[in-house]
């Protein structure tokens, strides 16, 4: 029996996550991932005006708010029989694109970079760069003052930590720059989205913001600014770290896990939604050459180890949401979704592998990089670059569309709730595959459910005892010093966890009132 250690809370993520591992001979032998907060949004939505859903579900998550609104609106579009006009579709893509840009930049710099930097190396910076000296003064000033919160306490730097004073000082400067540029990216979304976080302008059938020339011009200049940062700073930093100090971690495939990948696809390029910019698909058992189409009928969810009433694995649509906080063997509010019975990884690495992104494939063939924590950072950066270029294309399309007579942004004819209907909205969140389902009866919500990215990634064991992807990705990860388990958080943060939305999930199909046993 190895030594058990717990990291709770795992910080610098969205939501509340606990990771427990068993260490033997300096390596992780077993792992458990627990979501430790639940709210229960779906019951709240039952019986309400269906149009409220796209507003309320944005609050599933204050980090990837836009994609919940989008998936919800897409489910409403189908249920209402609404046709989103090209103008509305392009505006939605631009709004959601801005979310990706801010989210990925924030994730790399604010949420994970500190795990790879020996920040105190800054004190040894002896260069002459004025901007870097200003950063040095700032950090040294904090140390002298004896108050380095929130940069400390921290896990101690290890063999994989970057301690070259110039690189570290530059990285911290980029941390501070990124804090500003992620605001620019998010504000850009507010131009067409109304405000952020929690965009307001996405409704069933399209968007509410009629764009004018001034807004388009402002969006363009902000997009250019963010694009320059992504290509000149973010891309360079990831390549510098990935091909440099972190290459051994990358080549060892630390944090790889099950090597099953799933993407629903995202960003419709036509009004039928058939041509998607991010392609959907499935990769099984690390067989990177073979991508098969995704079939939603093959999704099931197990609640064996989650705090819900015991039930055999079923398709999400047959699922129910009766909390059982006293359940034996349960250790998470997150359910365990499976595809053909297999746990899947979702997110940028899954998307870029499924699309066989050439630069990522180049890292695999030329540098021997294996899927794992470092590859996740590379994939996230590569899709950011891909997307920021495509947003320029969409903006061009918007300018063209807006000049046409009869330019439309919303389907007014299908805005009132139907007597009955059902719809599903699939979207790719920055952190992975997201689905919303709605059923409408008597013009009200009869049933609402969501299966979110972190449910896939953060799931506990299923009924067969098979670990979720976070858990599996920790197996074999070196933890030479149990007092300083820095590799655990490196691996977990590489997924960009977002736990709040993983635990609001599904409400009972039967309209049964949620029950909980209280001691």
């Amino acid at each position, binding site marked *: 029996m190895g030594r058990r250690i717990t*990291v*709770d*809370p795992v*910080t*610098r993520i*969205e939501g*509340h996550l*606990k990771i427990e591992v068993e260490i033997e001979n300096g390596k992780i032998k077993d792992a458990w991932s627990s979501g*430790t*907060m*639940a*709210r229960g*949004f779906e019951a709240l939505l039952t019986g*309400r*005006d269906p149009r409220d859903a796209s*507003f*309320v579900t944005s*609050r*599933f*998550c*204050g*980090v990837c*708010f836009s994609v919940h609104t989008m998936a919800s609106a897409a489910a409403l579009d189908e249920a209402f029989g609404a046709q989103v006009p090209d103008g509305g579709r392009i505006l939605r893509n631009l709004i959601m694109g801005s979310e990706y840009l801010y989210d990925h930049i924030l994730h790399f710099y604010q949420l994970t970079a500190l795990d790879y930097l020996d920040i105190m190396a800054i004190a040894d910076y002896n260069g002459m760069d004025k901007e870097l000296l200003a950063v040095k*003064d700032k*950090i*040294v000033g*904090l140390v002298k*003052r004896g*108050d380095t*919160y*929130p940069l*400390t*306490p*921290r896990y101690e730097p290890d063999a994989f930590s970057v301690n070259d004073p110039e690189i570290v000082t530059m990285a911290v400067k980029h941390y*501070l720059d990124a*804090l500003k540029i992620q*605001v620019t990216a998010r504000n850009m979304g*507010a*131009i*067409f*989205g*109304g*405000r*952020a*976080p*929690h965009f*307001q*302008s996405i*409704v069933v059938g399209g*968007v*509410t*913001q*009629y764009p004018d020339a001034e807004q388009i011009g402002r969006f363009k200049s902000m997009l250019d600014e963010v694009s320059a940062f992504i290509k000149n700073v973010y891309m360079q930093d990831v390549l510098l770290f990935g091909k440099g100090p972190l290459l051994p971690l990358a080549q060892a495939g630390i944090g790889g896990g099950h090597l099953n990948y799933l993407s629903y696809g995202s960003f419709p390029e036509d009004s039928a939604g058939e041509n998607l910019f991010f392609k959907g698909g499935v990769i099984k058992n690390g067989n990177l050459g073979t991508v098969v189409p995704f079939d939603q009928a093959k999704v099931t969810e197990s609640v064996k180890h989650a705090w819900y009433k015991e039930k055999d694995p079923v398709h999400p649509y047959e699922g129910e949401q009766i*909390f059982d906080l006293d359940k034996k063997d349960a250790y998470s509010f997150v359910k365990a979704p499976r595809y053909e019975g297999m746990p899947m990884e979702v997110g940028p690495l899954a998307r870029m592998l499924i699309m066989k992104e050439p630069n990522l494939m180049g890292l695999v063939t030329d540098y021997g990089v294996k899927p794992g924590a470092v590859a996740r950072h590379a994939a996230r950066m590569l899709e950011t670059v891909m997307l920021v270029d495509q947003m320029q294309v969409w903006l061009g399309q918007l300018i063209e569309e807006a000049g046409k007579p009869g*330019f439309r*942004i*919303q389907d007014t004819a299908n805005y009132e709730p139907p007597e009955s209907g059902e719809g599903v909205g699939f979207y790719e969140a920055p952190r992975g595959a997201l689905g919303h389902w709605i059923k409408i009866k008597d013009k009200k919500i009869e049933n609402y459910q969501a299966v979110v990215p972190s449910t896939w990634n953060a799931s506990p064991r299923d009924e067969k005892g098979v670990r979720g992807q976070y858990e599996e990705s920790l197996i074999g990860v070196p933890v030479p010093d149990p007092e300083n*388990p820095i590799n655990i*958080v490196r691996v977990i943060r590489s997924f960009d966890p977002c736990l709040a939305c993983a635990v609001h999930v599904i409400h009972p199909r039967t309209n049964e009132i949620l029950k909980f046993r*209280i001691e």
Partner: protein
Amino acid sequence: MLTSFRSINRRDFLKFCAGTATLLGLSEAAVPRVAKALEEAAKKPPVIWLEGQDCAGCSISFTNTSNPGTAEIILDTISLRYHEALMAASGHQAEKALQDSIKEGGYVLVVEGSIPEADDRYCKIADVPFVQTVKEAAANAAAVIAIGACATYGGIPRGTPSKGMGISAAMDKGLVPKKPLINVPTCPVHPEHFVGTVVYYLLYKKPPPMDAHLRPLLFYDKLIHDNCERRGHFENGEFLADWNDFKQRNFCLYLKGCKGPFTHSDCPKRRWNDGLNWCIGCGAGCQGCSEPAFYTGMSPLYQKTKDIAGYRIETVGAVMAGAVAVGLAGHFIGQAMTGRLGKGGPTEKGGES
């Protein structure tokens, strides 16, 4: 002195103070006073930021603050002892930082997210129920600032099976010790409302003047409707019916469900995201997120809330047009309607007061 107090240069520091003064509605003349107050602080005031049943939207919104900027605040102005989304520490180290700071006392406690009233186990961090952590942290706090709809009045989680409650309610029930409390609502919190409140507290060592719901009057004393850029269209009876019609794009959104007539906030003046846009500006309408009634009391969001002053709102235009012919009478009707709009409206339990 200055260099030992903060690690930014004098020019940046004065810019910071000017931004702070602007946030608080103070004149340029107040900048030296702000600077003096901040410089005289012996050490950076400690802040503990707890997240309960939240979505981290308020944390993300906080990073939207640009003048003063986020980095200036978290590195130079306050000593941020605990913040799950931003701090370097994890696990035991994070919890130790929290416990040490609680022992030290005298900090400002910021709470984001609600407390589950139905069962403590709906929200546990480091195996401790969230309500317990808030109780311990509030006990030694100098003041508590609740941010966002969830932590102030329960927000969206209040309507869920876990029954999220705000800090006010938890204090009223005796679950959390009573301390000076400031509510800074909206969903998410407006970064300038929050930073302005923090800075006010740091400058004056007391909560700003507040309304009955403990909202700073500085930001929440006016109805959105009274200052709305679309108010003229309301008075003219011009209501948006089709988002695709260029001519209607700035019309009043009341028929689309706008809750501006029942919602207190300076959003029309301040707007969001560095003034780029706001909820009414983008044609969606206000959803009443600064009010205790939000969300259940504001639902359905996309339907007209009620008729006003005995007039079917759809016919206000015709009434007003007729009234213009008789001069003052038209103005009188307008005033009467305005008065009525300020009273009554959605309540926490739904329906109207």
